[in-house]
């Protein structure tokens, strides 16, 4: 139980900080040169995928709350969560890493 709470809080705060950092990075764009704006947008997009992954992980780790409070919906919640986990494991992380790779390629082009 304590382990579940620990994971849930870790993922919850990670999600919060990632979201806030996305907002600050979006604001930070106005101090950046137009040349690197494309790469900035790309890594913000990658962070969005990471935020989605962390959100699904938060839902997964927070299932003990559903079990405690909404026991009637627990089975359907688990079913829905399994689909989400499969999607996140199969696609979202790949999308994130592809976004980072594109960022690196764009930065290479700019800095050459």
């Amino acid at each position, binding site marked *: 139980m304590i382990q579940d709470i620990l*994971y849930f809080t*870790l*993922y919850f*705060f*990670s*999600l919060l*900080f*990632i979201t*806030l*950092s996305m907002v*600050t*990075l979006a*604001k*930070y764009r106005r*101090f*950046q*040169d137009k*040349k*690197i704006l494309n790469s900035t947008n790309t*890594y913000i997009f*990658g*962070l969005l995928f*990471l935020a989605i992954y*962390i959100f699904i*992980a938060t839902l997964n780790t927070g299932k003990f709350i559903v079990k405690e409070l909404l026991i009637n919906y627990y089975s359907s919640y688990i079913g829905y969560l399994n689909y989400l986990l*499969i999607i996140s*494991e*199969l696609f979202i*992380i*790949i999308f*994130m*890493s*592809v976004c*980072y*790779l594109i*960022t*690196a*390629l764009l*930065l*290479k082009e*700019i*800095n*050459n």
Partner: protein
Amino acid sequence: MGELLDLLLLMQKYLVVILVFITAILWYNIKSKNKISFYTNTTIINLIFATSFPFIIDIIHFIPKNITFLIKSILIFITSIALFFSSLINYKTKRKERHKLLRELVDKKKDTPLKLEFVREIIEPELSLMKKEKKRLEKEKAIIKEGKETLKKYNKKLEKIRENLSLEKIELKNQEKDLKKQKSHLNKEEDNIDELKDLIEINKKKIEKLKNKAEKEYIEAKEKKKNLFLYEDELNKEKNILELEKAKITKEKYEQNKYKEKIDKENENILLKEREIYETKKKQKQAENELLSLKRKIKTLQTIIKKHNIQEEI
């Protein structure tokens, strides 16, 4: 299906790790060449790429799953915190710097190198451009002046035309008003005509109904007339028959009158005879009455005689 899914997941994990490594190598190459531009913030990008490193732990099989999951979640948490704070600090410092720069640019007392550079690099070319523009504008102004004079002449002409036009406009307005009035009048008349048309149509319908009715009545009257003619013929026939009968009846009447006269005469004779009978009957009654009175007298006399006889005997 489950095995295929597991295989895909495993492949995906390896693919992610490969992509992360390629990205890291690329970024390392860029950094090692020392060719990074002034605007690229390396710490933020380092931290962003660091957010993908926790996914490398997924393919390390000798570490137990629980520990892997714990390390992964802790690493994600640490990188997200670091990213947030570094981005926030960078954003704040950049904002302060920009604010300071803007203040210096506005400050008239200080001649900072940036301000001078700004004047040299941006304002001076702009000024030269503006001077050129000014010359061009002056030329245009002269041309415009010439044009203005010609325009003034044209304007005078135009004013005259305008006055005429304004008069014409007033006339046209008056005409328009009249036309509007006429139009409204016509509209009213049109409405009246429409109403009359409606009335006429209603009357037409009524007339048609009456016509149909009259036709029906005419046909009925014709038939009645025919019937009447036939009836009249029959009546005439009956009249002739009746006249003949009348003639017969008059003859009979005449004869009856004659007969009546005879009967009257006979009646008179009868009445006379009856009177005679009545008188005779009266006389008979009188005679009878006289007879009765005589009888009574006789009786009385007989009684008297009898009484007289008795007395005599006594």
